[in-house]
C-alpha cells in the first residue's frame, strides 16, 4: 500500500515536471516572434557578442543589418565594422575660451549619428556657467535660450562622452555589451545590450542615453554611412553614446568628427595622442588644460583647455 502510494506520487511528480517543461518550451516559443519569423529575426536572436564573431559570422551580421536598414530607410545603407588603426589613441580638445554655446555641435552630431528625433536624444549637452563661479555644476543651466550667445558674464561648456581610459560604465555592464576599444573609444554592441541602464547610472558625465521608444528618424535625414559600433539605427531598449564619430575617424584618411567640423568658432580639436605632431598633443603640451571631474579617476581623453 505504502509502496504503491509512493510510486503514484513519483509518477505524478514526473508528469508534473513534464508539464512544466512543456509549458516553459511553449511560452518560450510564443515569446519568439513566430508570427513574422523571417530568417533574419532568428539570426538576430541567436547572434553572438560582437567580440566573439568570427570573420564569416561578422560579414553575415553586417549583410543582414545592411539589408534591414536599406529596406527600412529606402536607400543603400552601409554598415562597417572598421577596426581600430594601429598606433592611434584618439584625444579630443575643447577650447572653453572660444566656445560661445551656439549648440551647432549638438545638431551636427544628431544628423551625423542618426540619433532619434523623437523622443529626442542628443549626445552633446551644452552647459551655460557663470564666469564668476567657474566650473561649478550647481549653477549650470542646460536649457538656456537667449536670442543671442554668448551672454554677458557667461561661459559655455559642452559635455559629451569623455572616452575615459578608466571607464566606470563598462565595468558595471552585466553582459559585457560595452567596452573600450584599442584606440580608446568606448563602444556599445546594440544587439547585445539588455537595456538595464547600469552604465547610465555609473557614468559621471551623463553621457549615455536610453532608447525609450523606437526612435523616429526621417528617411531623408538618415545618414547611410554607418558603423556597427557607432551610428547605425538603434533598436528600442538599448543605450547609446558618443563614439568620436567612429564611422568617420577610423577611416584612412579619417575625417574630423562632425561636431569639430561644424563648430563655427573652431573650439573643437581632435587627433591622435600618440602622434607628437598632432594638434591634440600641441594643446596638451602648450595650453592650460583640465579634465572634467578629475577626482573620480576616470582619466578622460577629452581635454578642456584655454587657448588664451
Amino acid at each position, binding site marked *: 500500500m505504502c509502496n504503491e502510494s509512493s510510486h503514484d506520487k513519483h509518477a505524478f511528480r514526473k508528469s508534473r515536471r513534464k508539464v512544466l517543461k512543456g509549458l516553459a518550451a511553449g511560452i518560450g516559443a510564443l515569446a519568439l516572434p513566430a508570427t513574422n519569423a523571417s530568417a533574419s529575426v532568428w539570426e538576430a536572436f541567436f547572434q553572438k557578442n560582437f567580440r566573439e564573431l568570427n570573420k564569416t559570422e561578422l560579414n553575415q551580421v553586417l549583410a543582414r543589418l545592411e539589408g534591414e536598414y536599406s529596406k527600412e530607410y529606402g536607400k543603400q545603407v552601409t554598415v562597417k565594422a572598421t577596426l581600430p588603426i594601429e598606433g592611434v589613441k584618439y584625444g579630443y580638445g575643447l577650447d572653453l575660451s572660444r566656445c560661445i*554655446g551656439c549648440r551647432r555641435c549638438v545638431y551636427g552630431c544628431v544628423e551625423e549619428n542618426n540619433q532619434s528625433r523623437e523622443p529626442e536624444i542628443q549626445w552633446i549637452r551644452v552647459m551655460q556657467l557663470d564666469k564668476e563661479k567657474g566650473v561649478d555644476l550647481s549653477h549650470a543651466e542646460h536649457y538656456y535660450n537667449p536670442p543671442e550667445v554668448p551672454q554677458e558674464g557667461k561661459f559655455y561648456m559642452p559635455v559629451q562622452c569623455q572616452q575615459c581610459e578608466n571607464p566606470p560604465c563598462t565595468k558595471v555592464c552585466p553582459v559585457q555589451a560595452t567596452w573600450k576599444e584599442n584606440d580608446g573609444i568606448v563602444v556599445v554592441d546594440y544587439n547585445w545590450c539588455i537595456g538595464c541602464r547600469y552604465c547610465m547610472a555609473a557614468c559621471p558625465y551623463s553621457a549615455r542615453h536610453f532608447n525609450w521608444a523606437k526612435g523616429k528618424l526621417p528617411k531623408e535625414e538618415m545618414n547611410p554611412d554607418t558603423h556597427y559600433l557607432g551610428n547605425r539605427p538603434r533598436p528600442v531598449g538599448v543605450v547609446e553614446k558618443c563614439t568620436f564619430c567612429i564611422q568617420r*575617424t577610423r577611416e584612412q*584618411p*579619417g575625417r574630423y568628427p562632425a561636431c569639430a567640423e561644424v563648430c563655427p568658432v573652431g573650439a573643437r580639436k581632435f587627433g591622435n595622442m600618440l602622434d607628437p605632431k598632432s594638434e591634440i598633443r600641441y594643446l596638451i603640451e602648450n595650453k592650460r588644460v583640465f579634465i572634467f571631474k578629475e577626482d573620480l579617476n576616470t582619466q578622460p581623453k577629452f581635454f578642456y583647455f584655454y587657448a588664451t
Partner: protein
Amino acid sequence: MKIYVWRCLSLAIGLVAFGAVVVYAAEVEKYFDRHGTLIVQEKVEKYKRRADEGTTYPVPPPPFSEDIFPCSDCHADMEPNPQRRELVDMHEDIVLNHAEGQRWCLDCHNLDDRDTLRLISGEVIPFTESYRLCGQCHGDKLRDWKVGVHGKRTGFWNGEKQYLLCAHCHNPHSPSFKPLQPMPAPVRPENLDRQGSQAAPTHN
C-alpha cells in the same frame, strides 16, 4: 680685353673681401661706456630660417564682398593718395574698429597695387596670405593657427587639412567674433513624452 677681365676679377675679389669684413663686423656687437672703453662684446646670433618659412597653407579664396575684387578694376585709373583721411566717396561703409587710432587703410593695403597687401617690412603679399599680415601683431595666434589650435581646420585628422583665413571668421576691419542665435534648447525630461505636441521654444 685682358685688362678688362683683370679689372673685373679684382673688383669681384675686393667686393667679396669687403663683404666678409661686413659680415664679421655684423657678427660681433660691441658696447662702449661714455669714455669709449669697451665693456661688452657680444656675438650676435645669426638669422636662422624658421622651419615653416616659405610654407604656404591651403586656404579657400578670401571672403571678398561681392564684385569688389580685383580692386584694380577701379583703382587702376586713380591717382594714389597716401594722405591719411576719412573716405567719403567709396568704402564709407567700412568702419574701422581695430586699433583705429593707430592705423588706417594703407598700413595694410598696398598703395601701389591695391590687389595686394603690404607687410610692415615692405614685402607685398597676396590676399591669400593675409594671415602673415595679421600675424605681425597677433604672433601668438598665428603660431597656434599654423598647428591647427587657433581657428577651424577641416579635412582629415590623419591626412590633408584645409585652413580658414583669419578673415573668414574675423572681419579685418572689426575683428571681434559676432554673437550667434543658439540652436533650440533640449527638451526637458518632464516634457519628453509630450514632445509631439510641444510648443515652439520661447526665448527667455
